[in-house]
């Protein structure tokens, strides 16, 4: 069940929101915010600390989990049929969508060309209860041209929730004007463990 109200309720309540002390409250709130703009107020955590295990909980219980591997085959995206791209159909970005690895939620995407030093992958992990859990993400792959698959991602360890940022993935060799891009495959595996 959502904590927010449906549209009708909100409208009904807002209609009676004004009070005689509202102006003073607004002034005080403005001073408390210290000039913070809406985006800063909206994006900042409402409360910091709720995500940690309360009291002794984390010491008593710890859950690990693995994510089924995500495999992406490069897509032929060039007009002449020679360019290969990690995204779907002529560029863009391919999202894995949220997947569970036990209690952890994993998001990832790939985009860019198989060649040209601009293929990228990014992985985001949520649900870690530090310091009792750790999530390890690994990126590997292969190329059909006999060249090497290059991954700057390799293995990244998340001790807290966060994102890897975009990391280079590509195939070495091929991909010039006279040579078709190689086909590539990239594989993401994620495992979460208790410490």
């Amino acid at each position, binding site marked *: *069940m959502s*904590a*927010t*109200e449906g549209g009708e*309720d*909100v409208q*009904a*309540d*807002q209609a*009676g*929101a*004004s*009070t005689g*002390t*509202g102006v003073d*409250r*607004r*002034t*005080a*709130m*403005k001073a*408390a*915010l210290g000039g*913070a*703009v*809406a985006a*800063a*107020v*909206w994006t*900042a*955590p*409402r*409360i*910091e*600390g*709720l995500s*940690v*295990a*309360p*009291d*002794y*909980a*984390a*010491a*008593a*219980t*710890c*859950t690990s989990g693995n994510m089924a591997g995500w495999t992406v085959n490069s897509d032929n995206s060039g007009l002449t049929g020679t360019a290969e791209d990690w995204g779907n159909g002529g560029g863009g970005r391919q999202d894995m969508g949220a997947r569970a690895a*036990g*209690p952890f939620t994993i998001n990832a995407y790939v985009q860019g060309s198989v060649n040209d030093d601009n293929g990228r992958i990014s992985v985001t992990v949520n649900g870690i209860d530090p*310091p*009792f859990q750790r999530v390890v993400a690994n990126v590997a792959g292969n190329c059909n041209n006999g060249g090497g698959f290059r991954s700057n991602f390799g293995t990244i*360890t998340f*001790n*807290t929730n966060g994102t890897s940022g975009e990391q280079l993935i590509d195939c070495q060799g091929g991909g010039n004007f006279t040579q078709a891009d190689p086909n590539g495959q990239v594989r993401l595996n994620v495992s979460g463990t*208790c*410490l």
Partner: protein
Amino acid sequence: MAAGQRPIHAAGLAQRTVHGRIVAWGDGEPPVVLGPAVQAAWPFLDGTATVAELADDLAGAAGMPGRDALALLTMGVLDLATAGLVTGVEPLLERWEDRPGRPRVLSRTERIVDGVRQMVTELAVQRRDLDRATGDQTSLGEAAGPTSCTGRRLQLDRPAEVVTVAVRGRPLCVRTDDPELARWLAPVADDSLGSGPVAAFVTRDPRPGTGHRYAVYDGNTFLVGDGTDVAAAQAAVVACLVSHHPPADRPGLAVRAQAVERDGRLVLGPRDVLRRPRGLHRQLRRSGVRPVAPSLLIVDGVEPVVAVPRARTLADLDELVLDRFDLRGFWLQGDAALRADPARTLAALLRGLPADPGQDRQALLDRIADLVSTTPCLVTSEPRPRLTDLASTVAAHLGAPSR
């Protein structure tokens, strides 16, 4: 209806403003730091203004759409209620699956064993839930599953003997599979008081060559002793027994903490500060630093001094002596963001220093905040440093010359 409710500060909440940010601590919940929107509305959560009225003012103050402000403040109030900081929003909470008081479900599994369907729900429990369910007859360590991380650490998956002894008129138990330790406990064993919570878990692993390696955990799963010396393990068991229940007439403020000391100086940290305890213990010992055995420490209300309750011998468990140490600072593990924000540092520290039932949280919050502002607070950051470097840093914190 969320927007029409009038949230009000919960009775007995503790709060403190640290560098402009509010650290608030509700009963039975971990302390938190309020975000900017919630903090702006915080002074007005007095039961007179509705969430809608507050959201309307927040929208005007922050220059954000009213609907966004209402959504933000509604969730903020739910967060506050979850943290035990506001009441007056019960109708909203009833409609919220994650409402306070509901056990946090970690996983649900279903399996068929010999044709019988078994459903297993894994829950996160809090100490107060455990006390409520067992009447303080079960320690946290006993609640761990035998094959869980904690259970394996405490060797609950192995058979062991449970010896009951009386401490200040109450039964407490020691769990051990070591015949020598059991024989040592025999003279004070007393089954006439019935069963009690396990206050000490003694684990034993074969040591290469001869003998064993011992580890002693208290009822709250703090590692309070680790080594090959039987006498040290026995001392750790005594420390667990005398500190399981706080002494009634204690001076100062009792906290559950992990402390390390060197030459009468002490650094105090949350439970998880020795998160890789055994290896870190070894490195600390090489720097002349040793963990303080009991997890129950008594912080002086005036001087930067910490008293550690101790019994002289196993036969004198009711006669406590207090060893006094100069508090040289605090130590916690966290990231750079934690280190940069004093309010977050304080909240993180207090989250790892759980108050015993009946503890005056405002007094503890104020005292720890005062001490953090006047003594060094060491925050070791991820990625984790090498254990030797970490031990040297902590030793330097205690005044040891660099190695």
